[in-house]
């Protein structure tokens, strides 16, 4: 790691102020992405602002029709929360598949979404459930939040505070994990909320998480795995790397979408 200054934020306001003051700085949440990055010297911010101690940022609650999860809530808490398991079981199940137990004990939903790794799980849930990302400055619908590889709509000193997930009628998530890291080689999140049907794919797209309109249309008519028969996504625009070719990923999108739909139906 390069040298950096360390600040511990007391609350969100304090964190925002520290971020602004420190200039070239980064928020530190669970550190499960940031610390490995720093260790490999792939980043060298002058300062870290630790929001690990900010109480108001963590917690899970049902508010009206939304399941609200604080940004500092750990993956393990989401995976085991009774509230989440009841409201959106697919979301709890998704959290349970992230990395490994130690990563889940530390990593946070806010960090995952802010990082927007093209193979991360939570972005699929956000897009697949039509979530709203609440920040220290505004509310951003998921459709406008994820901007590309590791790119989001977040401004420099903007902090995610909560994620609001509309509770769907049903939802399902299926992923083909990379056997080493458990990141998604391809993961598909599907949900149905009245007439709003969503299919979001992670792990596959060159530009990160994306929706598949054709699948959504088919599922609107008939929310079942069978409805997806014969619908194929094209390899163009999908990732090709040492783990899988674009063709293989395209195939996996079809298979995972069906599994997700089957688990949701």
């Amino acid at each position, binding site marked *: *790691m*390069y*040298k950096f200054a360390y600040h511990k934020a007391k609350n969100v306001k304090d964190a925002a102020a520290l971020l602004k003051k420190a200039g070239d700085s980064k928020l530190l949440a669970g550190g499960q992405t940031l610390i490995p990055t720093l260790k*490999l*010297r792939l980043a060298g911010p002058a300062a870290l602002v630790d929001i690990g101690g900010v109480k108001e940022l963590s917690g899970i609650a049902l508010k009206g029709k939304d399941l609200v999860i604080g940004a500092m809530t750990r993956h393990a808490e989401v995976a085991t929360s009774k509230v989440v398991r009841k409201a959106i079981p697919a979301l709890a199940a998704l959290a349970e598949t992230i990395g490994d137990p130690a990563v889940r004990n530390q990593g946070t939903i806010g960090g995952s979404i802010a990082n927007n790794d093209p193979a991360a799980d939570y972005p699929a849930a956000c897009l697949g459930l039509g979530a709203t990302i609440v920040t220290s400055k505004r509310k951003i619908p998921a459709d406008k939040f994820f901007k590309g590889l590791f790119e989001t709509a977040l401004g420099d000193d903007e902090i995610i505070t909560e994620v609001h997930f509309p509770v769907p009628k049903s939802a399902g998530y299926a992923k083909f994990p990379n056997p080493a890291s458990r990141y998604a080689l391809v993961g598909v999140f599907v949900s149905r909320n009245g007439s709003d049907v969503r299919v979001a794919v992670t792990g596959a797209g060159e530009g990160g998480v994306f929706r598949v309109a054709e699948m959504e249309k088919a599922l609107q008519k008939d929310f079942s795995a069978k409805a997806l028969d014969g619908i194929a996504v094209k390899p163009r625009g999908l990732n090709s790397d040492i783990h899988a070719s674009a063709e293989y990923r395209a195939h996996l999108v079809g298979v995972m979408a069906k599994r997700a739909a089957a688990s949701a139906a």
Partner: protein
Amino acid sequence: MSASSIGAPVRRTEDRRFITGRGQYTDDIRRPYQTHAYFLRSPHAHATIKGVDAKKASKMPGVLAIYTGEDIAKDKVGDLICGWMVLSKDGSQMKAGRHPALAQGKVRYVGDSVAVVIAETPDQAKDAASAIKVDYGVLPAVADAAKARDPGAPQIHENAPRNTIYEWALGDAAAVDAAFKRARHVTKLDFINNRLIPNAIEPRAAIGEYDQGTESFTLWTTSQNPHVARLVMSAFIGIAPEHKFRVIAPDVGGGFGSKIFIYPEETVCIWASKKVGRPVRWTAERNESFQADAHGRDHVTHAELAVDERGKILALKVKTTANIGAYMSTFSSAVPTFLYAPLLSGQYEIPAIYCEVDGVYTNTAPVDAYRGAGRPEACFVIERVVEVAAREIRMDPAEFRKRNFIKSFPYQTPVASLYDAGDYPGALDKALQLHDYRNFGKRKAESERNGKLRGIGLSSYIEACGVAPSSLAGMLGCGVGLWESAEIAVTPTGMVEVLTGCHSHGQGHETTFAQLVSAKLGIPMEHINVVHGDTDKVQFGMGTYGSRSGPVGMSAIVKAVDKVIAKGKKVAAHVLEAAEGDIEFKDGKFQVAGTDKSAEFGAIALQAYIAHKFPTAEIEPGLK
């Protein structure tokens, strides 16, 4: 507490320290005033070093010294060596290029060390390394063994034209050619045995320390064979005279071959410890393990199998290009030759075999022994080609194997190995039975009906373990003998110290060896302590690799125990006032045959040390 018998299920003695976090691995050792080394490695596969500018870096906080290949050369530190001479078909010696511990003038693979920074903390060393400016002249590189000898391929070492280290062969080419002429069917196969990275879970590490008072060196290192490391570093690299050089390999977290070799990093740590006048330590980061541990395998092979009309194998022809990497690691030459070709007969009766192996340089990390070293590569060749041949002639692969298995022993293969015994058809039949091979077709059809695929694979394997004896090793060009040492030291209270030249890095020698001695001496395992991995304690040893600790190391222990018993009989005869020939040793007791006069092992040990009334011309005091 009672004696253990060989084969009895016992709990491992070494486990207590590992499960409580009290193991002592190299990186766990702290030395007073220690400093930390960080190696600046080449990001290029092949480049000239036009200049290294360390001015700024050397002024950074905590930096004590920065050294490059020039400093190594100035101090006349010898090159790293390959300790096994392999001759080409034409009788010429292998062409080993120079391998300085820090690159001189040129880097030859990604990970080749260009400079070392020694600083007060690891972070400071790393900070400074990133401030060193190296002016590289990037050269074309070749990584693929199959392309290393292409016209126009970059030349990696001046003394190895066409990047060729040797063109070695084993077997009878003429006999093979003649057999191929008679063949009904010839199977031809090209394949790659891919390179891999050993990745022991404990990264390599080293601590070098120089004692100005006694002018002696100590090296703690993650080694499978500390004595060989000391020998090579003193005799060839010339760092310190052997008697002033102690090498300690404490607990080691797995080796898989990769910790046999003598590497640049430990060489630099021990050399630099004298220069900076303080202990110098280094522990690899995992990404350094990937870059700079010796890799395994990496063969490109063409094989042909000649078969007659009855499905009998007539001959095998193999041509392998072995990727040795950018430098010849310690035993790299032997792995794709002597450890490979002699097993190409597998379990099969093959009247004629001819194998050619070309060792080539490429711009990749050095390749050396890894798990099985050469032998799994040979197995892969013979089993693949046998399987494909069976399919091509439409014979059941199990039947084809059985038809060609060696059935009478001893059997002399055409590739030097002599097999003493075996029941290959019996073993295969057992496996087929366990697997219900006969009904596989039914299961496959059923799977197909369910939209699934089902396959089956067969393989047989023969392994040459123990890598010995010394006479053969010498004949084949090995630079050291492959014997093993053992010493049994009995204390006056009858406790036993077993000193072995083998090294345990997960094998459990402390238990197994103690169990052997316990069974032989009839004393509890708790009274036995196995000592290994320290050149100051153990006289000499070849270390642990190639499954040799059991067959070779334990054989040495048995011999040493026998000597202790023989000496014990002498002492017992004296103590029990009987003739030496009348003394029997059984169940931990020396007994006068046919009488009830006896003495416990411990009692005799004590007498051996008290030695008050010994006829010292006949019996020396002590029990060793």
